[in-house]
């Protein structure tokens, strides 16, 4: 069996709230291979961003990764390693691109300094060498006149340019895995097209693995080779991208795909998923999607479904896998 680049096993993250513990990420397991692009999709509050942050041990205050959770990256135990080792890993072998570059960048440092800092922290390069590499990287991410731009502050750049700076910072040391959390959500569609093209190009050139967290199924279809769908703190479906879109196995995935409006739509009614996502403090017993599901029967209210094999590389957390005759037309 080949060694995976990343293995996440039974990841659980909970927050203490007045209404009791909120189990925001609740038993997430998956693996990633070197060079692979995996899409992690789901709606607000499904736990996808928190899963991503946990990989770098960046869980926000109040949150706690439960004992028993395991994250292995390049054969190192991320959750057990000392802070020093973790810092050496972050930004070097494993890095992250955030949604909002304006809040993720330091407003009082020039963008060149911020990109160069990554090099200085992780390598023995001199200040001069680090600066040269930073300017070179800014050029690679498509920033025009990079030598001059490097001396500017984040507020002097447009949203698209700031996101390019973030990408330069994340990629300058050619990490093995880049986690991109909604990297284009804050951008206009023509700028999003530029950034996606840039990410695709850099991925192909460096061979990095990319974990792309997004709510946009169009972005996933275009970028990912494999997709994980999250709902209510759990992975409910995992499939190669073409299979997920052609033959989704989970009723939630099916509903989500049908609800997305497309450009060639002909003003018919959009499919909707009734109801809303339950609260993380009170996940329903049994299947967490059952109240919104058209197929649910008694078993769904009592027995939580396991992630079951529907085909090779296709796993679905639904009792329909064992009892397909229960599916309603």
């Amino acid at each position, binding site marked *: 069996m080949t060694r995976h680049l990343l293995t996440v096993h039974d990841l659980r993250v909970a927050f203490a709230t007045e209404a009791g513990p909120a189990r925001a990420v609740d038993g997430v397991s998956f693996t990633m291979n070197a060079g692979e692009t995996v899409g992690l999709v789901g709606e607000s509050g499904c736990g996808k961003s928190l899963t991503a942050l946990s990989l770098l041990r960046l869980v926000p205050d109040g949150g706690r990764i439960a004992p028993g959770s395991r994250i292995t990256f390049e054969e190192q135990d991320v959750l057990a390693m000392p802070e020093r080792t973790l810092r050496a890993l972050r930004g070097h072998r494993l890095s992250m691109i955030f949604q909002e570059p304006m809040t993720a960048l330091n407003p009082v440092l020039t963008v060149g300094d911020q990109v160069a800092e990554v090099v200085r922290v992780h390598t023995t390069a001199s200040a001069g060498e680090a600066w040269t590499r930073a300017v070179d990287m800014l050029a690679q991410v498509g920033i025009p006149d990079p030598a001059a731009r490097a001396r500017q502050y984040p507020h002097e750049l447009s949203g698209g340019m700031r996101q390019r700076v973030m990408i330069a910072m994340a990629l300058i040391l050619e990490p093995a895995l880049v986690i991109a959390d909604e990297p284009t959500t804050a951008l206009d*569609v023509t*700028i999003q097209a530029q950034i996606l093209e840039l990410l695709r190009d850099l991925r192909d050139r460096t061979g990095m693995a990319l974990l792309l967290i997004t709510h946009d*199924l169009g*972005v996933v279809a275009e970028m990912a080779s494999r997709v994980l769908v999250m709902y209510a703190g759990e992975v409910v479906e995992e499939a190669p991208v073409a299979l997920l879109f052609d033959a989704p196995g989970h009723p939630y995935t099916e509903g989500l795909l049908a609800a997305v409006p497309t450009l*060639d*739509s002909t003003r018919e*009614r959009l499919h909707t998923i009734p109801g*809303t996502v339950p609260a993380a403090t009170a996940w329903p017993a049994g299947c967490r999607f059952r109240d919104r599901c058209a197929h649910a029967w008694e078993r769904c209210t009592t027995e939580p479904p396991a992630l079951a094999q529907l085909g090779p590389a296709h796993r679905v957390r639904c009792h329909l896998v064992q009892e397909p005759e229960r599916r309603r037309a």
Partner: protein
Amino acid sequence: MSVSSGATPLLEVRDLAKHYPVQGSWWRSPSQFIRAVDGVSFTLHAGETLALVGESGCGKTTTGRAILRLIEPTRGSVRFDGQDLLALDREPLRRLRRHMQIVFQDPFGSLNPRLTIGAAIREGLLVHELAQGAEADRRVAQLLEEVGLRAEHASRYPHEFSGGQRQRVGIARALAVAPKFIVCDEPVSALDVSVQAQVVNLLRDLQRDRGLAYLFIAHDLAVVSHMADRVAVMYLGRIVELAPRAALFAEPRMPYTQALLSAVPVPKPGRAPRRIVLAGDPPSPANPPSGCVFHPRCQHPAKDARCTRDVPVLAEKSPGHWVACHHVDVTTPLPPPLAPA
């Protein structure tokens, strides 16, 4: 000549502009203006949806607010139901507002956190003296049910609702005064896709049942293709293309519209997009380019000196299809599809 689709329109906007001064001070008149909206004209008929699309800063939101005089336009005219809105005094304008409502993007920011949602919806009824007392309560209950909430929700506060439910409250509040026209300013942009679909369907049902006219402001072109009868594309404060929905999506003619449509990611893996990736960012509306505002980013093969010199007029190139481009009659071949990933 007007950018219209026949018959007498409910709303007629002509040469609307909103310029914001920059670098001015109380003793010196401003030397520069941000031309947020710079000469926008269109019409809207009863029961029709016109979508106003474009990217951040193109002026679509400012246009919507200037029409309702939530901000005062710099110039232009807005005729609503035969009356010139920009000439009206406070009181007649207030009375006419009953017929023109707005639904905002952020339903939380636009609802008073200390008012129950029942009180928020009643407010319009009271201000316009449409109902009071038990009759108002009855109307509030009816409105809540019409937007898919329950009558007993009236006594709850905004924070008790999810984003989608709050947007339903925002819609109920707009409907309370039985308007003819609603400006929908990015009404589903903040919502998750499954909830977004619920609200899109609700808006369409309400339009059918009540004959509402919508000015639907949005950046999501896929949502627009579900909502709109006609679509106006804005760039840097101007309308650069306006056409019936089917024509705009099937045969966009302005190079910017073509790039915009091609940039939308398609939720179908393997269907490689025929994408035009624009270079650079949109220019600043404080210092718009000469001639065609799109020329610095335009990839049209016939681009020439005229594009940098003369402002193209929004002209009707085929029935109902208006385009502002000097070279629209020259066909632009789309680039070949991207190699599959």
